[in-house]
């Protein structure tokens, strides 16, 4: 089922620079990780201070950030400097080590998820750091560390709003983690592997041909029901509207991040965007054929970027268009709706695969 393994990014660097042995492997891995980390940071840099404002402005019929640079793009460095230069206010009675660690845990864990994401080829380079056999399970494990950070921040802040936000984050993750993973399991049934490259290559087959155009067997097309379920659970997992109740600006100020300022706040903001992009990346790999798209394989990365930005746009669309669910509704939707539907989907997929194989 799995194709010949493509050369991974650290191996490519080790070979190009001629780094031998284990030490060379470590150095190459660090270089590769640095590049991947900065790609993700560049996404969040564009998304946070610029794209998010522009998109929201477009939805609400305004013109946003257009003062600095072409299309207001220079607002990105300006905002970065401005936010980092803010005074850090440490509120009274915060639980000190935890309060300082929470803003590190969120971006670090979300970024770690990108280690196994196959981001496609850019020229001769295959932008994937690692391809272990447990890839899909690993990426969910990394992605769900984020809620630990929210609880840490919520509890340590010594603020009632933060506390509520942290506890809401727990309730939300308890309700949506299982539907998310069980729906992803239906993809695993199709692909027969947890390895990310295997899941992507299993989607390269031709589903049917329309007017000479081969429609690939992306799991979003093979099983649209699972795709919609996964999309919904993914929105809850990354805490975006309509499931943004851990933050809920109109109810509990800013939830778990109420007491954070300066670089700590930036790190939460950044971590959330990395988490959104990680959610988009998981969605792209499991349901949208990874980096597949028209054109040669060497521009796969472009398609991958298009897909995760489409997901980002979708989250912003939901932010502008959908009301927030209440916490009791969230529990009901999660446990009585999504959980049952996701297991039904799992059984149906198993039967379907059994019939077609």
């Amino acid at each position, binding site marked *: 089922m799995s194709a010949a393994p493509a050369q991974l990014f650290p191996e490519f660097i080790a070979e190009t620079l001629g780094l031998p042995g284990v030490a060379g492997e470590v150095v190459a*891995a660090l270089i590769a990780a640095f590049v*991947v980390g900065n790609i993700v940071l560049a996404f969040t840099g564009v998304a946070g201070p610029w794209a998010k404002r522009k998109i929201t402005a477009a939805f609400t019929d305004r013109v946003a950030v257009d003062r600095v640079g072409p299309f207001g793009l220079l607002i990105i460095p300006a905002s970065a400097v401005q936010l980092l230069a803010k005074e850090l206010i440490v509120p009274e009675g915060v639980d000190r080590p935890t309060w300082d660690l929470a803003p590190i845990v969120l*971006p670090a864990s979300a970024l770690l998820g990108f280690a196994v994401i196959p981001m496609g080829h850019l020229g001769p380079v295959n932008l994937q750091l690692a391809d272990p056999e447990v890839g899909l399970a690993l990426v969910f494990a990394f992605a769900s560390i984020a809620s630990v950070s929210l609880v840490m921040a919520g509890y340590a*802040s010594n603020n009632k709003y933060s506390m509520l936000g942290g506890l809401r984050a727990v309730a939300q993750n308890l309700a949506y983690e299982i539907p998310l993973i069980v729906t992803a399991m239906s993809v695993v049934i199709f692909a027969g592997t947890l390895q990310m490259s295997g899941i992507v290559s299993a989607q390269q087959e031709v589903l049917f041909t329309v007017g000479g155009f081969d429609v690939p067997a992306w799991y979003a097309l093979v099983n649209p029901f699972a795709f919609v379920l996964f999309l919904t659970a993914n929105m809850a997992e990354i805490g975006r509207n309509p499931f943004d109740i851990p933050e809920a600006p109109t109810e509990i100020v800013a939830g778990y991040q109420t007491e954070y300022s300066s670089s700590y706040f930036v790190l939460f903001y950044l971590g959330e965007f990395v988490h959104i992009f990680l959610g988009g990346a998981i969605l792209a790999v499991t349901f949208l054929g990874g980096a597949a798209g028209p054109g040669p394989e060497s521009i796969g990365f472009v398609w991958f970027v298009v897909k995760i930005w489409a997901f980002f746009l979708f989250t912003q669309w939901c932010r502008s268009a959908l009301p927030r669910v209440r916490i009791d509704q969230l529990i009901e939707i999660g446990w009585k709706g999504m959980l049952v539907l996701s297991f039904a989907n799992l059984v149906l997929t198993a039967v379907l695969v059994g019939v077609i194989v």
Partner: protein
Amino acid sequence: MSDWIAIGALAAVGLFIPLGMMVVSALIRPSVPEQGKSTIYESGETPTGTTRIRFNIQYYMVALLFVVFDIETVLLFPWAVIYRPALEQGVPMWDLLWPMLAFVGILAVGLVWAWRTGAVKWTKSPRATRRKTERDVNQ
């Protein structure tokens, strides 16, 4: 092996980026301590009481259910991985399907029980209900 070196490298970079930003920020930001600045935010009022109070975790039963379903999910993953390869090797579908159905079925019974006893329902605390009644009486 090199997979885990690469993941470890990204973990190092992932820690380095936030720490680096904290250090840069610490170098360039001002510090103007003022009376009242460090008060915790409570919508502009002076904060009352402590945050670390005892309160009713509504989803306590849900959290217990989560553990059960989480373990189930973990145990289902190996099954999901071998399902299609086993089918392709000619194992009849039903032989592969019924253990999973039995396993999920047992937990489905558990979920039905939890559903009927109201464990996955957001219960209102007695105090919230009482307040509502008093207000209704006053009106």
